């Protein structure tokens, strides 16, 4: 337990000490929020689907969490290249504790980044359905962050260097984001796209977050919760297994 706590705190320290990174990774969500949130607003309203800005905010928050989480997991590669990973691997603690510490730290970092994005959305005009559901939103924030930090950890355990990073961004993270319900509602989509969305765990994360922030759930809160918990556990197990196989 001690090692988990220590490594988790380490990541929080690193995060809080790099304001450049916090602000820098806000850029992308803000661009999406402003361009899409205001750009599609009129069309969305004409179609009778309500306030697009309010609709897209949970998607943008999920985007902030997704990117930060995958990157936190992948940080293993940096630690491997710049050496710190060795220091943890020769320590008398189990690999499981090390990986859990890392994942937990990355999860909290991604949640904080999600909170920062959410604050920005509030500033630009997002209105809550009900403050009472905020704890539920936190639960979904946690699950999204945990899931994607685990994916990042699994990838970071396998990749030897950052050469593969663009591959991960363009063939995993971007599709995960765009083929989810982050930017558009799931109803009335072509069959293939609908299937892709249903297979994407982020869809359930965004749906859960959207429900918790005052919109209607496309699935149900139970479905969203169950899918995310199961997917997180599976990916956390895969990530832990791959991490435990790292040799120097």
């Amino acid at each position: 337990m001690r090692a988990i706590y220590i490594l988790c705190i380490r990541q929080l320290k690193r995060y809080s000490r790099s304001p450049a990174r916090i602000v820098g990774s806000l850029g992308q969500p803000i661009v999406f929020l402003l361009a899409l949130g205001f750009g599609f607003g009129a069309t969305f309203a004409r179609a009778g689907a309500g306030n697009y800005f309010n609709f897209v905010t949970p998607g943008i928050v999920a985007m902030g969490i997704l990117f930060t989480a995958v990157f936190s997991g992948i940080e293993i590669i940096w630690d491997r290249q710049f050496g710190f990973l060795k220091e943890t691997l020769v320590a008398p603690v189990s690999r499981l504790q090390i990986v859990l510490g890392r994942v937990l730290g990355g999860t909290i970092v991604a949640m904080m980044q999600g909170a920062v994005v959410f604050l920005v959305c509030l500033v630009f005009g997002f209105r809550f359905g009900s403050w009472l559901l905020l704890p539920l939103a936190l639960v979904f924030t946690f699950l999204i962050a945990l899931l994607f930090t685990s994916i990042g950890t699994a990838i970071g355990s396998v990749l030897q260097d950052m050469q593969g990073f663009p591959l991960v961004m363009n063939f995993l993270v971007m599709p995960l984001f765009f083929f989810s319900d982050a930017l558009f509602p799931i109803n009335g989509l072509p069959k293939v796209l609908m299937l892709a969305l249903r297979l994407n765990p982020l869809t359930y994360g965004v749906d859960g977050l959207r429900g918790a922030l005052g919109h209607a759930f496309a699935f149900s809160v139970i479905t969203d919760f169950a899918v995310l918990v199961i997917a997180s556990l599976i990916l956390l197990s895969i990530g832990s297994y791959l991490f435990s196989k790292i040799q120097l």
Partner: protein
Amino acid sequence: MSDIIVVQDLVKNYGDFCAVNHISFTVREGEIFGFLGPNGAGKTTTIKMLTTVLDPTSGALRVNGHDPLHERKEVRRSFGIVFQDASLDDELTAFENMDLHGGLYGVARRERAERSQMLLELVGLWDRRNDFVKQYSGGMKRRLEVARALLHQPRILFLDEPTIGLDPQTRNHIWSHIQTLSKEQNVTVFFTTHYMEEADRVASEVAVIDQGKIVAQGAPSALKEQTHSATLEEAFIALTGHGIRDEEASSADHMRKMARVWGRRR
């Protein structure tokens, strides 16, 4: 004196390539043991296997009476290591790096603080303890790594080219501490180096490894005698030949280059 490190018929293959080829040697407790060899001879691979981060293809290992393959925790508790390349967290301060290490090794909080102070004073970094490691020079980082490796009072200290790239002042400084430590606390030191006069000066026993095989072992004086050489460097060349060895650049080298090009703040 008992044998604290025992290596028997150790082999490590990477595909067709044999990095370590049936080597056997022992290191006695309290000894300063120099593990010498040209680039790519298998020194670091051997250290990785002794320190539980790489599994051998075959052979038997004993570190402080435990098997690195099956009793990892016991083995890890018994050694401290200074790796060939950096292993500090640059974004933390020197003191935080020490504290994190102590935490991982289960050193009690009070003792951790006391020993951190004592060791940082020993390597002359106490005044800079609250600086971020990224502001440290290469020599300061090395000294910090030595201090950190000693924090949990290991029985064995592994040093993989600990003085590479350091000026003579820092080298002497580091070695005099290590020698004192070895003498006063009976810590076994297992080191690799390319500086033969350094090995000659500090090691009581050396082994020379070349192309994955041990070609000689004994006291530096015995090796010189055996090869009729005046210095250990001559003896080393007599044993391993004049050919220049190529070592493939690791992906870490590529990464560092990339990081420099992109100017990532580290």
